[in-house]
């Protein structure tokens, strides 16, 4: 993974010192809140219902075991013993005190981490495939590209005052595990007919109150043109994007209103006009960054593992977990493991300090000291030998990290919602807990098969409900929580925005509603069909009538 050089270290250390001064001036009254607020947001520090909230950047979701241990220490020393992993592969602390934040940032800087640009109207964390560098279907590891974008976008003087937040995602495979089509800019690594690596550029996707799937703005962009093209794309947005209305300020609105063709034309004109040589990194820099992500030396192993098979025979719970929570690896005899942070009845994406330490130890022991956070709020150990799966499982079990539910009905994404968030209109975590408890039975979960439920506690859609197979949106209707259900959303290469079923439901009704939808699916599915496939075949009416009483 990327390691800071002296410039990177200088930047984060100076940033901490700068923020320390800003906090001191805020506490003394020398800075007023409206002066301080944009400054603290640029360091990822929000003020929520009960406390401040610090969002720490985990670049493209990758972190080392040492970094994970530091996150655990911070949770214990400065917070309430836990952290929350987010849908943008970051971590959030829910209870820091303002005066402690500079010290927290220094502890982060000490392990090459920071909270820069995790909030505010700037370019945020560039997210990616959690199986980067491991996935069997990958054209190229997307992380060198993500690291280039990260360096280009951090403290970029021209884009520090955008009209609104800006989110970029990169996939290295055609199967899109980074949800690039619902990002402001989505980047797909592709190969052209000559076998050259380049990028397909999607611009103008997003969720929130006006969800949109991004159109392709450039079909093939040669590798070295990436940063200049991004610069051109941002310049056009910065110039033409709206600033009069917060709800119309994202690039998706601009691309939609201009039209994709007109937007593309402006970008190409800017691209042609600009001094690209100044912006494009030279090959030496591209190679320097790529070297940090050089694949490890794989051991020569047979594809199948006798130890794994024996373990599965001996322990049916382990067998279930090994089948559900692993992902195909490019090297024979290896697998990528997904550690579920969605135990039945738990708060999705939360991990205690002890659990973080255990995951760090597991990474050291079994996965070359590296972990990844997924945008579905789980944790990946990318390079595990199949021989080691039984030992890893037993280790995870000691901290309740062995739920065998990847992609199943209890693998729910939920934003923090009204229990934490100042923007929320309804609770989301208790809804996830209730659904999870309703479907606790593991056999039943497997019978249902892949089913992605995503819950947002307000219209800002941080829970990504628009791209849930079942999406749940919590609103406030005359002081009472009301949950709207959407069906048929999908985040990947077959991206779709879910369709509303109809009137919303009360908090207590939601688990019953989900159960009725599931039962209807089980009743009408054809052999081998997933929930999403059945919905796409049978359509809304079949499901709608299951949850609303006949008129």
């Amino acid at each position: 993974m990327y390691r800071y050089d002296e410039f990177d270290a200088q930047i984060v250390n100076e940033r901490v010192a700068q923020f320390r001064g800003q906090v001191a001036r805020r506490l003394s009254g020398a800075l007023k809140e409206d002066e301080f607020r944009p400054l603290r947001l640029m360091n990822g520090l929000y003020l929520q219902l009960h406390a401040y909230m610090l969002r720490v950047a985990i670049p493209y979701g990758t972190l080392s075991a040492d970094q994970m241990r530091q996150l655990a220490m911070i949770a214990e020393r400065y917070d309430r013993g836990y952290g929350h992993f987010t849908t943008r592969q970051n971590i959030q602390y829910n209870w820091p005190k303002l005066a402690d934040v500079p010290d927290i940032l220094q502890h982060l800087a000490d392990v090459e981490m920071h909270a820069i640009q995790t909030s505010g109207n700037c370019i945020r964390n560039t997210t990616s495939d959690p199986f980067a560098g491991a996935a069997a279907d990958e054209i190229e590891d997307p992380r060198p590209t993500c690291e280039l974008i990260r360096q280009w976008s951090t403290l970029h003087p021209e884009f520090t005052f955008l009209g609104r937040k800006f989110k970029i995602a990169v996939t290295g495979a055609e199967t899109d595990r980074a949800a690039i089509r619902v990002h402001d800019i989505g980047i797909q690594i592709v190969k052209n007919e000559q076998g050259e690596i380049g990028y397909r550029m999607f611009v103008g996707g997003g969720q929130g109150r006006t969800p949109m799937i991004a159109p392709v703005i450039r079909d093939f962009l040669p590798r070295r043109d990436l940063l200049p093209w991004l610069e051109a794309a941002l310049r056009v947005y910065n110039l033409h994007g709206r600033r009069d209305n917060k709800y119309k300020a994202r690039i998706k609105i601009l691309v939609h209103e201009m039209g994709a063709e007109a937007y593309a034309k402006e970008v190409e004109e800017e691209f042609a006009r600009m001094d690209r040589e100044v912006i494009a990194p030279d090959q030496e820099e591209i190679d320097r960054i790529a070297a940090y992500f050089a694949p490890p030396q794989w051991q020569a192993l047979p594809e199948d593992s006798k130890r794994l098979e024996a373990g599965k025979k001996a322990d049916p719970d382990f067998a279930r977990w090994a089948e559900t929570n692993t992902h195909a690896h490019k090297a024979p005899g290896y697998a990528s493991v997904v550690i579920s942070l969605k135990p039945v009845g738990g708060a999705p994406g939360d991990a205690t300090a002890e659990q973080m330490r255990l995951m760090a130890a597991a990474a050291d022991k079994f996965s070359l000291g590296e972990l990844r956070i997924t945008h579905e709020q789980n944790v990946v150990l990318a390079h595990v030998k199949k021989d080691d799966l039984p030992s890893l499982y037993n280790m995870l079990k000691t901290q309740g990290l062995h739920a065998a539910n990847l992609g199943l009905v209890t693998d729910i994404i939920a934003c923090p919602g009204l229990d934490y968030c100042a923007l929320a209109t309804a609770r989301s975590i208790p809804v996830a807990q209730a659904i999870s408890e309703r479907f606790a039975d593991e056999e039943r979960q497997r019978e249902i098969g892949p089913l992605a439920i995503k819950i947002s506690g307000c219209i800002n859609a941080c829970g990504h409900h628009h791209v849930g197979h079942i999406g749940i949106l919590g609103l406030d209707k005359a002081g009472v929580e009301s949950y709207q259900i959407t069906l048929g959303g999908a985040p990947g290469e077959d991206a779709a925005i879910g369709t509303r079923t109809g009137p919303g439901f009360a908090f207590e009704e939601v688990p019953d509603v989900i159960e009725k939808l599931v039962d209807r699916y089980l009743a009408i599915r054809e052999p081998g069909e997933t929930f999403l496939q059945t919905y796409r075949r049978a359509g809304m009416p079949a499901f709608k009538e299951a949850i609303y009483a006949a008129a």
Partner: protein
Amino acid sequence: MAKTFKPVVLTANALEGGEAVWWTGAGWSPRFAEACPARSAEEAALFETLAAAPMFERMVVGPYLAEVEVTEQGLNPGSRREAIRADAAPTFDYLVGAGAREQAA
């Protein structure tokens, strides 16, 4: 017809710790029960003026008026959001480790 005035309290987040606080009439308290309600439009207007006081910049962030219900037993929060703030915690057992249930199994 005159709209019935709904009592309000003045609330904010404490600057240092970020916790929800309420104006008691003599200071800011983290205990909702100690909040001082404004029982008329005139009192509410006074609270608005108070909220803008420069001295509060060093104590609290983002003061605003929140509706409450005044009963004989005391105050009740006027919305679920304010009830959650008054409890100073999420509505579920958030400190239970994510895997505690699994471990217990």
